[in-house]
């Protein structure tokens, strides 16, 4: 990268990595160190799930929907189940709704901890990565105790939930939450005080309130820029009206704020989980009857996934199968901001800006080719090389 500042290079990132899911492809055009243009190509993991839903009955589609995401499987099935229940005019018992909410929050905990580890790794802070992933096992164990599964908990059925909160699970939850809360306070201190880490986050990738609104970002990414939107509060679903979350707003809008917003959300999730376990309503786990055939109609179901608002549009033409299930995931909203934000930043900041939106992230490790624009004789980089480049760049300017 010793080219004169006026010379442009295109840095394609992605799309493949054999070990990981959900790949994406970016092309960053750089002038010297500075990114001047960026494009994205998605779709490598397009599996035709929306079309697949049209050929399955309402119940089968629930299991298909759950497999959209390997990190937030429960929130997808919740959005779908809530929508279908509204179409069927089925009342779900309060206990079932509260259990759904507990799992929503446990899922947020596991997702945010996973993200914190990946983000720390991209900043070159592997100790933090190892610690957060070790701690994340606590919440994975809780989910396994409750449901029998670590990832696809499959808690929802149409009209309720499959399993109750047993005394054994309640004890495991409270014990785990106590441990994780203490750890999260520690991590919050680390990301807001460690000078080397702050060099990678403070004032980097800043998105003002106005920019966040214009770009249409959602979730913690938006709330770190002061956008007061959280579907859990704006349009409460499952039991969020009775057991409300508290919005976690920051105003700085930089990467540091995005770290703090998610850590603050973790702390609120711990509070909320305790409240839910203590105040779990008595009652049944499923509705008395869930019809197999639904009458014609359409419904919009919005929920707050760990990454932001998840939007479902479900249409029935009458019968046993959905006519259309439209899914708009939060990463799609936030992806556009990566393209805009990286422009004007150093190439070294790209990994952190990308990680800042918490893209569905198992696809972190990619191949990178650096080549001169219009010239095919490139040298290949892996995502790990770009990450290393970022870390070395900041080490150099530090010295």
């Amino acid at each position, binding site marked *: 990268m010793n080219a004169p500042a006026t010379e442009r290079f295109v840095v394609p990132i992605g799309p493949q990595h054999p070990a990981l899911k959900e790949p994406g492809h970016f092309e960053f055009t750089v002038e010297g160190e500075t990114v001047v243009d960026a494009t994205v*190509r998605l779709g490598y993991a397009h599996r*035709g799930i929306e079309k697949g839903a049209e050929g399955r009955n309402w119940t089968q589609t629930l299991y298909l929907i759950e497999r959209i995401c390997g990190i937030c499987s429960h929130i997808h099935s919740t959005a779908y189940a809530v929508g279908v229940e509204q179409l069927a005019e089925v009342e779900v018992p309060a206990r079932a709704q509260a259990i759904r909410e507990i799992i929503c929050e446990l899922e947020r905990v596991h997702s945010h901890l996973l993200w914190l580890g990946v983000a720390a790794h991209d900043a070159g802070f592997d100790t933090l990565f190892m610690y957060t992933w070790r701690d994340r096992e606590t919440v994975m164990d809780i989910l396994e105790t409750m449901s029998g599964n670590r990832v696809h908990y499959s808690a929802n059925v149409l009209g309720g939930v499959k399993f109750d909160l047993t005394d054994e699970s309640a004890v495991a939850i409270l014990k785990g939450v106590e441990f994780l809360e203490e750890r999260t306070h520690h991590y919050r201190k680390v990301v807001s005080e460690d000078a080397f880490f702050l060099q990678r986050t403070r004032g980097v990738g800043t998105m003002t309130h106005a920019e966040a609104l214009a770009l*249409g970002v959602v979730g913690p990414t938006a709330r770190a820029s002061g956008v007061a939107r959280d579907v859990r509060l704006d349009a409460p679903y499952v039991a969020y009206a009775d057991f409300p979350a508290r919005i976690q707003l920051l105003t700085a809008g930089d990467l540091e704020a995005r770290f703090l917003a998610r850590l603050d959300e973790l702390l609120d999730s711990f509070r909320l989980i305790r409240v839910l376990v203590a105040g779990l309503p008595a009652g049944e786990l499923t509705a008395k009857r869930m019809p197999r055939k639904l009458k014609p109609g359409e*419904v919009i179901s919005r929920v707050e996934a760990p990454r932001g*608002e998840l939007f479902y549009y479900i249409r029935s033409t009458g019968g046993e199968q959905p006519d259309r299930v439209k899914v708009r995931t939060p990463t799609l*909203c936030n992806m*556009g901001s990566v393209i805009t934000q990286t422009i004007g930043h150093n190439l070294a900041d790209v990994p952190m800006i990308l990680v800042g939106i918490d893209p569905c992230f198992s696809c972190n490790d990619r191949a990178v080719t650096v080549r001169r624009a219009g010239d095919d004789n490139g040298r290949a980089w892996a995502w790990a090389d770009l990450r290393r480049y970022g870390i070395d760049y900041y080490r150099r300017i530090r010295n």
Partner: protein
Amino acid sequence: MNQTQSYLARAEALLEPWLAKTERPTDNRLDIWLSPDDLLPVVATLVAGEWGYLAAITGLDPGLATGQLHVLYHFAEGAAVVTLRVATPRDAAAVPTIRPLIPLAAMYEQELIEVLGVAVIGAPERGRLFLADDWPVGVYPLRKDFQPEQLDKESVP
């Protein structure tokens, strides 16, 4: 009047000239049927009036018998959702682009172009964002007359 109803009332006041055909499917929703020509002024009015945000665009095939495709623009504010519904003829499906007003719409419009075959007038020609590079041209998976056999014919990128 609760907050959701006041949001919807404000939307109705803003969009007063275009309320010829509306529905209230649920308490928190307002659906407005529009001709493709009215789409831009309506979106511009919502944006200028700072009413909510574009939550999603849904492309919909209501069946061969209707001879139409529908495009639904969902705007959300709090729990309130305003859906702008645009019908376009199936054999010449087209809607104007709204991305000069809402840049984020580019992602949603691209999906519409690729999976439902609705032309978005004013959208720059670009490569595919969602479907595979070797997916056959002119085959739209979310149309009801889509047959998997269509994928067997030689694909032309």
